[in-house]
C-alpha cells in the first residue's frame, strides 16, 4: 500500500514537473516563500491575497509582453529553518530567478544568504530590520527600514525652520541607529547638531540631561525617545520651566504619553510613517480589492506586497527573465515609481524610503500637525 502511494506520489510530481516545464514556456514564474502555515500564517494569507490581486490585474492587462505571470507558492511554515528549505526548493527545483521572501525580518534574513549565494533576486515586503538587505546585492526590500525615521525627523526640523538643534536619544541600538541617520541627513540639509545627549532607559531622573540639552536656550530640541522615558523627561522639563519646541519620532506617539505627562507634552511635534490613503493609486487599489474579495479591510502590509509584484513585473519586462536582468533593472523601473505605498525608488542599500506624517498634541489629544 505504502509503496503504491509512493509510486503515485513520485509519478504525480513528475507529471507536475513536466507540466510546469511546459508552462515555463509561456509564463513568467515567480517564487513566493510565504508563511501559509505556522505562527504568522494569519499574515501570510493576506500577503498571498494581495499578490494574487496584482498578478490577476497584470495578466488581465496582457501580462508581460504577452506572457502571463505565475506565482509558485511555497509554504515557509513561519520558521527560519523552513524558510531556508522553501527558498532552496524554489531555486533548485522551480528554478525561478526572483523570489518574494518570507515575512518577519528574522525569517527573511535566515533565507537571504541562500538566495544571494545562488544569485537569485529576493524581495521583502514586510521586513523593518535595518540590516535586512545586508546579505548582498540580490536582496531588496520595498518596505522602509526602521532607522529611516531619522530622516523623517531631520526633514521635519528643516521644514519647521530649525537649523541648529541638539539631539537627545535613548542609549541603545535603536536610539543610536536613529540618531546616526538623523545627524547624517540633517547635516546634508545644511543643519547643525549642537550637542548629542545619549541617556539610559528606565531612569526616574533626567533633569541634568535636560539642562545640558537646553543649554544656550535652543529653539528646538530633538528627543528620540520612547513613551515612558519621554513622559518623565517632558514632565521634568516643564517643571524646570524649560521653554523649547520638542521634536520626537513615532515611538513617543501614544495616549500614554499624555496620561503620564499631561499638559507638559502639549505642543510636542513628531513624525510617524504613513501610507497616504488619499492618493489615486491607493484608491484604485482599495476599489480593486473590494471588487475581488468583497471586503473593505486591507490586511496588514497588503499594499506593500501589491507594489512588490508590480515592480517585479516591470523589472522582468525591462531586464528580461533572468536574475541579473531583474536585479539591474529593478533600480531603473522603481526609480520614481509611485505605487500604492508611495515612492518606491531604491537607495544604494536596495531599500526604499518612507513618507512621514506629522503629529502633535493639542488639548490633550494626538492630532495631525498643521502649520
Amino acid at each position, binding site marked *: 500500500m505504502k509503496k503504491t502511494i509512493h509510486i503515485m506520489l513520485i509519478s504525480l510530481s513528475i507529471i507536475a514537473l513536466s507540466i510546469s516545464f511546459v508552462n515555463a514556456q509561456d509564463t513568467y514564474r515567480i517564487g513566493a516563500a510565504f508563511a501559509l502555515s505556522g505562527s504568522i500564517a494569519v499574515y501570510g494569507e493576506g500577503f498571498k491575497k494581495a499578490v494574487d490581486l496584482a498578478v490577476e490585474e497584470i495578466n488581465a492587462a496582457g501580462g508581460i509582453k504577452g506572457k502571463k505571470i505565475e506565482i509558485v507558492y511555497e509554504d515557509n511554515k513561519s520558521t527560519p529553518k523552513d524558510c531556508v528549505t522553501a527558498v532552496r526548493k524554489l531555486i533548485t527545483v522551480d528554478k525561478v530567478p526572483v523570489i518574494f521572501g518570507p515575512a518577519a525580518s528574522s525569517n527573511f534574513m535566515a533565507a537571504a544568504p541562500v538566495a544571494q549565494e545562488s544569485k537569485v533576486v529576493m524581495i521583502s515586503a514586510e521586513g523593518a530590520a535595518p540590516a535586512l538587505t545586508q546579505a548582498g546585492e540580490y536582496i531588496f526590500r520595498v518596505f522602509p527600514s526602521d532607522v529611516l525615521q531619522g530622516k523623517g525627523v531631520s526633514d521635519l526640523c528643516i521644514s519647521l525652520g530649525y537649523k541648529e538643534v541638539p539631539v537627545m536619544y535613548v542609549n541603545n541600538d535603536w536610539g543610536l541607529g536613529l540618531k546616526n541617520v538623523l545627524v547624517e541627513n540633517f547635516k546634508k540639509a545644511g543643519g547643525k547638531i549642537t550637542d548629542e545627549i545619549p*541617556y539610559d532607559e528606565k531612569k526616574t531622573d533626567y533633569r541634568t540631561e535636560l539642562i545640558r540639552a537646553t543649554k544656550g536656550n535652543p529653539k528646538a530640541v530633538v528627543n528620540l525617545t520612547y513613551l515612558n522615558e519621554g513622559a518623565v523627561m517632558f514632565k521634568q522639563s516643564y517643571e524646570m520651566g524649560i521653554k523649547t519646541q520638542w521634536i520626537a519620532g513615532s515611538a513617543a506617539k501614544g495616549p500614554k504619553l499624555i496620561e503620564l505627562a499631561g499638559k507638559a507634552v502639549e505642543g510636542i511635534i513628531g513624525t510617524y510613517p504613513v501610507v497616504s490613503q488619499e492618493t489615486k493609486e491607493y484608491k484604485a487599489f482599495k476599489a480593486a480589492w473590494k471588487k475581488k474579495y468583497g471586503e473593505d479591510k486591507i490586511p496588514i502590509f497588503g499594499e506593500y506586497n501589491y507594489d512588490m509584484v508590480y515592480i517585479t513585473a516591470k523589472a522582468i519586462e525591462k531586464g528580461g527573465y533572468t536574475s541579473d536582468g531583474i536585479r539591474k533593472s529593478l533600480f531603473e523601473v522603481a526609480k520614481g515609481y509611485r505605487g500604492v505605498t508611495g515612492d518606491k525608488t531604491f537607495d544604494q542599500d536596495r531599500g526604499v524610503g518612507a513618507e512621514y506624517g506629522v503629529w502633535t498634541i493639542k488639548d490633550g489629544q494626538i492630532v495631525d500637525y498643521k502649520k
Partner: protein
Amino acid sequence: MEYLLQSILNGILAGCIYALFAMGLTLIYGVLNFVNFAHGELIMWGAYFLYLLMEKPIGLPLFLAFIPALLFTTILGLGTDHFIFRPLRQANRLTLLIASLGLSFLLRNGAQFFWGAEIRTYGFEIRRGMRFWGVSITSNQVAIIIVSVVCVALLYLLFYKSRLGKSMRAVSDSLELSRVVGINSKKTIRFTWVIASILAGLGGILLALDTNLQPGMGLINLVKAFAATLLGGVGNLWGALLGGMVIGLVENLGVLVISPGYKDAIAFGIMILMLLLRPMVLLGSKE
C-alpha cells in the same frame, strides 16, 4: 551660571534620595550585618501602597493616604524579616545576601503582577516649579530636601541619645553579648525594621511624587544608594547623607562635561574606587 546652579540643585535632590535610601540600607546593615538588596523593593512598595490608597476604589486624598501607606510598608518590612530573615539569623552573610536578592525579585515581580510594568503617576497636575535666581524648584522637591535632613537629624538623636538607639548599637556590636547583658534583641531588631521600612516608604513616596511609579524604581536608585553607603562608611548615618550628596552632585555635574551616556559610570566608578580604597574615606568608621 543658572545652568550650573540648576545642576547643583539637581545633584542635591538626587543626593537626598540616595541618602534616604542609603540610611535604610546602612541601618539594617549596622544592626543585622547584611546588605538588604530587597530594600529597593520596600521603597517601591511604599510608593505603590500610596498609589493603591489614592486610586479607585479607595480614593483617599494624599494627606490621609500617607500614614496608612507608611504603615503598610512597615508591615511588609516586618513581614520580610519575620518570614525570611529571622529564620536565617544565624546563617552566614552569603546566605542572607542571596535570600535578600531572591526577595527583591519576588517583591518586584509581585508589584509587576498587580500593577503591570508600565509607568504610573499619582495623577497630580503638573506644575511649573518656583523660580529663585533663575533656578527652578517644585514643592515636591522642597519636601524631599526637608524630609531627608529631618530624617537624618531624628535618626541621629534616636541612635545616639536614646536608650533604644543604644541597644540597637549594642545588638549591632554583638548579638550574643547584647543578649547576655539583658537587651531584648528581638524587640530591638523589630524596631530597626520599623525605622528602615518607614525610611524606605518615605523615600519611595517622595521619589514617586517627584517622578513616577514603576516596579524598577527602587532597584535603579538602590545601587546608587549602595555606592553612597560605601562612600560614607557602612553603618554611619551622617556618612550616608554625605555619601549620597557627593554621588548626586558628582554625577549631575559630571554630565555637564562628559557625555550623559556615562552618567552611571561616574557613580559606579566612585563605588569601585571606594571598595578598593576601603578605609572609609569620608568619615571613617569602626571597621
